[in-house]
């Protein structure tokens, strides 16, 4: 990769070649703009970690028709399971669909491996005319008064000048903080994800998860899997491997003094998980931070000459039902590109023009989704949802299904007794029902 000539000027500078950055670069380049896409990794995806299920197939299909035919995807997800756990027991909601869209194009979601998928997606931006510069760290912004006019890279003669900068530099976005758009993040807003890719024979995966052909499954877990730590776990099927990991709220890890990789081992040893992973071999261990507080940790999204997208803008929707980020990253990248295209057409790069980004984000349902589910992250990371209710479901299940010759109790007294057994106060349960309703129902 050759360095750019220091005097070269770009219409759009995109920092970070993840899904947000590559989407922004691709759209801007297709509009005929001169675009540079800067990535600090040896290749796009080298530093990126997700579960990962990519739920943005229809979005990408509009950009690259039948993209799954050429992209490195693993399996299309038509089975999902939400699992509540106590140390010995699990209770789950199992969803499987052969409906249109789940098992046929454009599909609902695909499991992907980010180093492969992100690399492919950045290649598409490059093919559209964007200039891809890898192995380059961006340390700071260049300013002309209040106007961002480029970026400072850690290379000799590393200043790169341009009219619009789109910061897609991830959860630790230095650019958003340096521009004063984002405050310091707090530990209850971040989760640490530790993950393993475990190699497993393709036919074994099909058998174990009851899948045919390229069908895939996504399992998500809450409860005892993270012990007392607030968090959850996931297990996704790839072509010939499993991606599994534990997410733990950073503040909660500190409070309970738990090592993240120990939780990962606890998870794999759980009676509901062990039979699924048996016989596999570790292929890669990784870790990454996740911005989980959504709406409540969102930075100011634009300034003169600057927009923030993807994880840098906290566009990760973690509500318990939805754990999505790649799709919102792409949508936000596209929205930022639309604003950049408008600004370049008007030759006016102030915040007034770039405020079109907000409108584009609403049109693409990014801001609307985050606003609608703004109460969910707080609830999901609450003590009772994390530990008490999974325990309640598990104990309730044990009592419900146990046959020991004693008189069978009807459901209400049975659950009432279980409720008292785990120490739940009816008053709290009512409060939580209201919280659930407010977070999810209207």
């Amino acid at each position, binding site marked *: 990769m050759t360095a750019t000539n220091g005097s070269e000027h770009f219409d759009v500078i995109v920092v970070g070649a993840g899904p947000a950055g590559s989407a922004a670069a691709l759209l801007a380049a297709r509009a005929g703009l001169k675009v540079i896409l800067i990535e*600090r*990794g*040896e290749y796009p*995806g*080298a*530093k*990126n*970690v*997700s579960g990962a299920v990519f739920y943005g197939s229809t979005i990408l299909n509009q950009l690259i028709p039948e993209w799954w035919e050429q992209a490195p995807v693993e399996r299309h997800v038509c089975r999902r399971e939400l699992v509540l756990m106590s140390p010995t027991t699990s209770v789950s909601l199992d969803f499987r669909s052969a409906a249109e869209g789940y098992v046929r194009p454009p599909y609902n979601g695909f499991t992907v*491996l*980010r*180093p*492969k998928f992100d690399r492919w997606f950045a290649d598409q931006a490059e093919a559209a005319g964007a200039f891809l510069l*890898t*192995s*380059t*760290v961006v*340390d700071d912004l260049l300013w002309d008064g209040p106007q961002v006019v480029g970026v400072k*890279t*850690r*290379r000799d003669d590393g200043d790169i000048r341009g009219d619009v900068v789109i910061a897609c530099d991830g*959860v*630790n976005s*230095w650019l958003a903080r340096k521009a004063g758009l984002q405050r310091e*993040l*707090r*530990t209850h807003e*971040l989760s*640490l994800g*530790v*993950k*393993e*890719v*475990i190699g497993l024979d393709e036919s074994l995966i099909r058998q174990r998860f009851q899948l045919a052909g390229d069908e895939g499954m996504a399992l998500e877990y809450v409860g005892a899997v993270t012990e007392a730590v607030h968090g959850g776990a996931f297990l996704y099927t790839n072509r010939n*491997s499993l*991606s599994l990991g534990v997410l733990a709220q*950073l503040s909660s*890890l*500190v409070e309970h*003094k*738990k*090592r*993240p*990789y120990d939780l990962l*081992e606890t998870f*794999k*040893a759980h009676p509901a998980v062990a039979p699924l*992973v*048996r*016989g*596999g*071999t*570790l*292929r*890669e*261990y*990784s*870790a*990454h*931070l996740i911005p989980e507080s959504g709406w409540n940790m969102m930075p100011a999204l634009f300034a003169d000459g600057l927009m923030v997208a993807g994880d840098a803008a906290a566009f990760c929707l973690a509500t318990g039902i939805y754990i999505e980020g790649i799709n919102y990253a792409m949508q936000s990248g596209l929205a930022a590109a639309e604003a950049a295209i408008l600004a370049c057409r008007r030759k006016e790069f102030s915040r007034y023009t770039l405020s079109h980004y907000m409108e584009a984000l609403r049109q693409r349902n990014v801001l609307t989704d985050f606003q609608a589910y703004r109460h969910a992250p707080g609830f999901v990371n609450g003590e009772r949802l994390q530990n008490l209710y999974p325990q309640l479901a598990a104990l309730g299940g044990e009592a419900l299904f146990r046959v020991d010759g004693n008189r069978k109790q009807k459901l209400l007294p049975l659950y009432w007794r279980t409720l008292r057994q785990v120490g739940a106060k009816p008053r709290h349960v009512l409060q939580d029902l209201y919280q659930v309703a407010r977070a999810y129902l209207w």
Partner: protein
Amino acid sequence: MVMTTHDEKMRTPRFRVDDTPHIVVDGEKCRTCAVRSCVTVCPANLFVLLDDGHVLFNYEQCFECGACYFVCAVEGAIRWTYPKGGFGVTFRES
């Protein structure tokens, strides 16, 4: 094997080590720290608490996740940036 030790895990990603450390820990400041949360949260287990209260840190197998920076309780004890472009961790499958 499915169940693995931390050492076994750390052998799987590829690291290209830069000569200059991208994270600098001020050991003196760490001595005054009561919690040392970095030792707990680091997924690569790069912070080691010594008997004399010093915290030993090795940047070479860092995932560049930022967890230590965010949990650090002592102002200015951890100076954090990314390694030089192309250096540091490279994931191939995650």
